[in-house]
C-alpha cells in the first residue's frame, strides 16, 4: 500500500541560517515525485526532515495523515519509510548480500539469545530473507556480485546495492537522494529502468532528489523546485524546465555548479 506524503510549511533553521522556509507540497500515493533545485537549495535537508534525521524548526510532515515530524528515523523506518543516501555507506569488507540483508533487520524475528543459540526460527528467517535479497539483486542486475565484498564494486554499483537494501525493507515510501550523482550515462539509463519497474511492480511512492534533469524528466509525475530554501514552483518536469524562474535559478547564479 503506497503512502501519501504531505509536507506543510516546513521550516528549518541552523542557528541564524534559514535552510528551509515554509515549504509545502503533497505527494499522492504511487507517484514518482521530484525535488529539484541548484546546489544548496535545501533538497537534502528537506529529505532529512522527512526521514527524521533532522527535526524541522516549524511545520508538519504527514505520512498517510499521521504527523511524523520529530519522530526518530528508526521509528519511521518501521512505518514503511526507506531512503538512500547521496554517498552510499556500505560495509565494504562484507559481501554485497550481507549489505542488502541489513534492510531486513526489522523483519527478522528473535532477540540476541535466540540468535546466539541459532534457533530454528532465526535460521529459517535468515534463509528466507537471504532468498529475498538475492531476488532483489537479481532484479537489479547485481546477482553476480552477491558474494563479492562490497569494496570490489564501483561507486555506481554501490548505489544499486543501497537501493536493494532499501527495497528489502518493503517500504511504502522511498526517498532517493541523488541516485544518479556520479553515475556514467549507461548506468543512469539502468536506474531509470529500475525505478520505472518499481512503479509498475511494487505499490510504492517514490520521492527523488536529483540534479540530473534528464532523469527527472524521464521519471517524475510531478516536481517541486527549491531555491534558497523556498519553494520556487510546483508542476510537471516539462513545466519546470520551461519556467523562467527555474532557468534563472539554475543558470543565473549557480551555473558553474550545475553545468556538471
Amino acid at each position: 500500500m503506497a503512502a501519501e506524503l504531505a509536507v506543510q510549511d516546513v521550516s528549518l533553521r541552523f542557528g541564524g541560517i534559514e535552510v528551509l522556509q515554509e515549504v509545502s507540497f503533497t505527494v499522492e500515493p504511487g507517484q514518482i515525485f521530484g525535488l529539484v533545485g541548484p546546489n544548496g537549495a535545501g533538497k537534502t535537508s528537506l529529505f532529512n526532515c522527512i526521514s527524521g534525521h533532522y527535526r524541522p524548526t516549524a511545520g508538519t510532515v504527514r505520512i498517510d495523515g499521521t504527523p511524523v515530524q520529530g519522530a526518530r528515523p528508526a521509528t519511521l523506518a518501521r512505518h514503511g519509510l526507506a531512503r538512500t543516501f547521496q554517498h552510499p555507506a556500505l560495509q565494504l569488507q562484507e559481501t554485497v548480500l550481507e549489505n542488502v540483508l541489513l534492510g531486513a533487520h526489522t523483519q527478522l524475528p528473535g532477540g540476541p539469545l535466540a540468535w546466539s543459540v541459532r534457533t530454528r526460527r532465526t535460521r529459517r528467517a535468515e534463509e528466507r530473507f537471504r532468498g529475498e535479497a538475492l531476488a532483489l539483486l537479481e532484479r537489479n542486475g547485481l546477482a553476480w556480485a552477491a558474494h563479492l565484498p562490497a569494496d570490489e564494486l564501483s561507486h555506481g554499483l554501490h548505489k544499486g546495492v543501497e537501493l536493494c537494501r532499501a527495497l528489502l525493507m518493503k517500504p511504502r515510501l522511498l526517498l532517493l537522494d541523488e541516485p544518479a550523482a556520479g553515475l556514467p550515462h549507461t548506468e543512469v539509463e539502468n536506474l531509470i529502468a529500475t525505478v520505472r519497474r518499481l512503479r509498475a511492480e511494487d505499490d510504492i511512492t517514490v520521492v527523488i532528489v536529483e540534479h540530473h534533469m534528464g532523469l527527472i524528466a524521464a521519471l517524475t509525475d510531478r516536481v517541486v523546485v527549491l531555491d534558497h530554501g523556498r519553494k520556487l514552483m510546483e508542476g510537471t518536469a516539462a513545466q519546470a524546465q520551461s519556467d523562467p524562474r527555474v532557468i534563472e535559478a539554475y543558470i543565473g547564479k549557480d551555473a558553474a555548479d550545475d553545468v556538471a
Partner: protein
Amino acid sequence: MAGARMTTAALSDRQRSWLRRAGPLLLVVVLVVVPLVFPESVNETIARIGVFAVAVLGLNVVMGYAGQVSLGQIFFLGLGAYVTAYGVSNDWNIVVVFVLACLIPAFVGLLVALAAARLGGLAIAMVTVALPIVGVPLAKRLSEFTGGSQGLSARFGDAPEWSGLYDDQWRLYLVLAIGGAVFLLTRNLVRGKYGRVLGIVKKNENVASSVGISPYRYKVLAFTLASLIGGVSGFLYMLVIQYTSPETMSFGHSIQLLAAMVIGGAASIVGSVLGGAYYVLVPQLTNLVDPSLTALLQGAVLLVVLFVLPGGLASLARPLGRGRRSRARHDPAPLITPSATTKSGSAADTPETERQGHP
C-alpha cells in the same frame, strides 16, 4: 578479470566447505585431548589464556564489533571474580555463583551503558575509564565483601573422584567448556542479524537508523553483553587463579587487555583467542629475556605487530576467508597456543608428584 576472480572464489569455496565440516570436529578433538597430554604448568598457562581470551572477547563485542571505545572491561572481570570469590567462600551453590557472576556484572554494565551510550564517542571512553579507577579503591574500601587490600582467596573446581583427573586437568576442561560455550554463542551472535546491526552502528549511525535500528539500543546491548562476558571471565579467573585483589582490576590491566584485543585482531573471534594468548604469554616471554625490560619489550611487540599487521594477528588467517570473513571458520588458535607454551612450561619444571587430583 571478473571470470578469474569467480573461479578462485569457487575454489576457495570448496576448501572452505571442507574446513567447515572437518574444522569444528578437529577443534573439539584437540580441546578434549589437550588437557590430558601436557604437564601441570602448561595446563595452567592454557587455562589462563582461556580466561583472558574470554575477557578479550567481551571487549571485542563492544569495541571491535560495535565500535564503542571501552577502557573499563577489566572492571567487569574483577567484579565477576569478586562475586565468585564471595559466593564460594560463603559456600553458595556453584551454579548460583556462576549465574550471579554473569548477571551482576551484566546489570552494572547495563546501568553504566544506559547513561554512557547517550554521550557520543569519546565521552563513552571517559566514562569507562572511570570504572577501574573507581573500582580499585572501592574494592579496598568494601573490605567486608572484598577482603580489602588483602583480597580474597577461594578454591573450587577440584577434580571429582570419579573423573580420575588431576585438578589442573579438570579445571582446564571447565575453562575450555565454559569458555568454548561463550565463544560459540558469541560467534553465532556476531553473524546474522546482530552482527550486521553492530557493524552498521560502528560504521554509520545515520544508515543504521534509516533501516530501523536505534543505535542507542544496540550500543547498550553491546556494552551489556561485554560486561556479562567480562563477568564470565571473572568466574573463570577465580577458578584458575583462585585469588583476587583490587589489583586485578587496575587500569593498567585494562589497557593491556585493550592492547591484547588490538594485537589479536579487532572484530575477530579468532583474534580474541590470539589476544588472550598475547595477554598471558608475552609478559612471560619478555620476562624470560630480561625482567627489567618487560614493559619496554611489550611495547616493542605492540608496535611491531601494529606496523606489520594493522589488522592484528587474526589478519594472518584472513586471506582464506577473504570477503566472507563472517563465515570463515578455521580456528587455528588452540593448535598454536600449546606449542607456544611448551617452552615456558618446561622451564618451570613442577614435579609430577605434587600434582593434585584423582588420577
